[in-house]
């Protein structure tokens, strides 16, 4: 037995020594049953609002968490919203994004000055653009699943992050996210990272005073698409 196997055995034995593993032969069945059909969690009322109200809740929490929210009627307006936000904040008209088909398919020619780069972000990229897998009304949280379509570095390295939220991506609470992840990746499977983002990066480590832009983005702009 290798040293690492021995450590493993020792640890399981130590854990079992403290647990009454003989108390019930059904321990394993109890666990299997619970894994197969987890008990229904207590879902807060605010996470169960009708779809029409979820959007307003999402928006108000995001704004409360210092994100900028821009609402557009159709996907066709996204390039203009992106360019407008960058101009208003004196930022370069160059965005880094993954290979997401929805973002690729937008009419970027409508904003000829806006440059779009594809691939993972590097330290030199100043603006990242992503499309979210879900957005949680309950807490004002964006959910991003990593992959070629959405490299995780795009979410964290640039100083400015712009995230597109389609109406259909909005869920009431966390439970809606688990359902989507299981539908997309299969039960009990995840992309390498699933990132919950609830505003720009922040810290209060110096004198307890809140400052934006600790290590991740200083600015988060969320584009809510109605159509």
């Amino acid at each position, binding site marked *: 037995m290798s040293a690492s196997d021995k450590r493993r055995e020792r640890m399981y034995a130590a854990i079992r020594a403290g647990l009454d593993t003989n108390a019930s032969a059904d321990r394993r069945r109890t666990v299997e049953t619970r894994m197969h059909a987890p008990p229904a969690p207590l879902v807060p009322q605010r996470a169960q609002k009708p779809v029409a109200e979820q959007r307003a809740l999402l928006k108000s929490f995001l704004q409360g968490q210092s994100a900028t929210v821009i609402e557009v009627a159709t996907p066709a307006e996204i390039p203009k919203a992106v360019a407008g936000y960058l101009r208003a904040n004196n930022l370069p008209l160059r965005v880094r994004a993954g290979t997401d088909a929805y973002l690729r398919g937008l009419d970027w020619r409508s904003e000829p000055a806006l440059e779009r780069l594809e691939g993972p972000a590097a330290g030199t990229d100043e603006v990242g653009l992503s499309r979210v897998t879900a957005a949680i009304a309950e807490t004002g949280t964006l959910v991003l699943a990593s992959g070629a379509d959405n490299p995780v570095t795009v979410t964290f390295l640039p100083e400015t992050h712009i995230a597109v939220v389609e109406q259909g991506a909005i869920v009431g609470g966390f439970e809606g996210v688990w359902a989507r992840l299981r539908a997309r990746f299969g039960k009990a499977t*995840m992309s390498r990272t699933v990132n919950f983002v609830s505003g720009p990066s922040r810290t209060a480590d110096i004198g307890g005073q809140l400052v934006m832009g600790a290590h991740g983005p200083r600015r988060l702009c969320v584009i809510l698409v109605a159509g």
Partner: protein
Amino acid sequence: MTSARLMDATVAPVVEATSPAFKQNVREALADRQLQEALGAVAPGLAARRGAARDALPEFEALRDRGREIKNHTLAHLDLYLELFEAKARAAGSHVHFAPTPQDARDIILNICRKADAKVVTKGKSMISEEVGLNHFLEEAGLKVVETDLGEYLIQIRGETPSHIIAPAIHLTQAQVEQDFRRLHTSLPRNRVLTEPAQLVSEARAVLRQRFLEADVGITGANFMIAETGSTVIVTNEGNGDLTQSLPRVHVVIASIEKLVPTLEDVGTLLRLLARSATGQEISTYTTFSTGPRRKEDPDGPQECHIVVLDNGRSQLLGTDFQEVLRCIRCGACMNHCPVYGAIGGHAYGWVYPGPIGSVLTPALIGVKSSAHLPNASTFCGRCEAVCPMKIPLPGLMRKWREAEFEGGGGPALFGLGLKLWAALARRPRLYHVATRFAVLGLSGLAMGRGAFRRLPFASGWTRHRDFPAPQRRTFQQLWAEHKAGVPR
């Protein structure tokens, strides 16, 4: 049941404890004006924000019960959930390592770094890494270790340890940070302005960004390990944990066994409690679920992912009264609401975990003999238990440590003698009545009509801070006898 094996740590802790010098630590902390200024600036705000967040979620109290049930269930089946987690994590491509002791964890991680030919290691915030003394160990082995959580960075450059589990630099003032940055970041212009927190944060961001980009290995902790998916979860506000794990070639997670939870649903319940209890946020800015190394089609992320699962004596708590402490999700609410912590800060506790949770956990991890002062450092006001999202009965567990310490022959000699005298009297009712009658008469005579003593021999510990009420001539038993006989007062 308090197991005798908990009296002494089986192995000496790898991180030295100054807990035996607690009383001296406290005197120094109370006299430290910078510490007192820093503590006053932050801790009360955290408590107030937690209250506001709780009030904004009507289901909060009911969620605490759900959270407690989840952890109790998981702990009762910990071996089985660990097996499930291990299998799923391996299936996702992670290497799972088992570390029964802190030294095992250190050796495993150093080995990973050596194999990766690492020179620079970045770290996200991890109390477990503090518990095993990881930084010092890796540095001795020649690695450059850089803490990236801003608070952790601030204390690392001072050679200090965290004084709070979620706000590690809570003991520092802004002026101290400025001095440290000027002392350390010498390549920057000397006349730069650093009067605002935002300027200090920007400077740290720029310095640490370079470290993120050059790191070979990134080490993070975990708030949860999910049996269902083999994922580990970190919760941060800065995003440093994400740059730490996504940029280097190798990601190492270090987590202790009680971080296991069964499913995503369970994580949801605990997330609804964690940030609200910790900082009063609805949710922390970043919650990241990590599952294995980069996939074939991924354009970024680490090529290797290692998960080091630490025991360090926790398994010994299973099946004892102290099992309840393993429900802790490390929110820090107990210390934010503790009058003792608020007065002395975290360092005085003398080991890795301060505050009420430390007073219960430290004796369990390093033995009550060297940490006996900690469970005694409590006013028993009960606020820690009242705010604990996992409803850990912290004062009750401190009381159990006091019992364990006493039964083990610990405690001051005078205290034991006093108790013996008291027991001798209390077992002899007649002698007791006579003695108390004399004592009460004597004391009320000494008071000479005043209602209270300002000074009293042998009781200066009491009278230095408050008056001692003078007895009113008769004992309770005398009054009671008169009452029953119908004598008007």
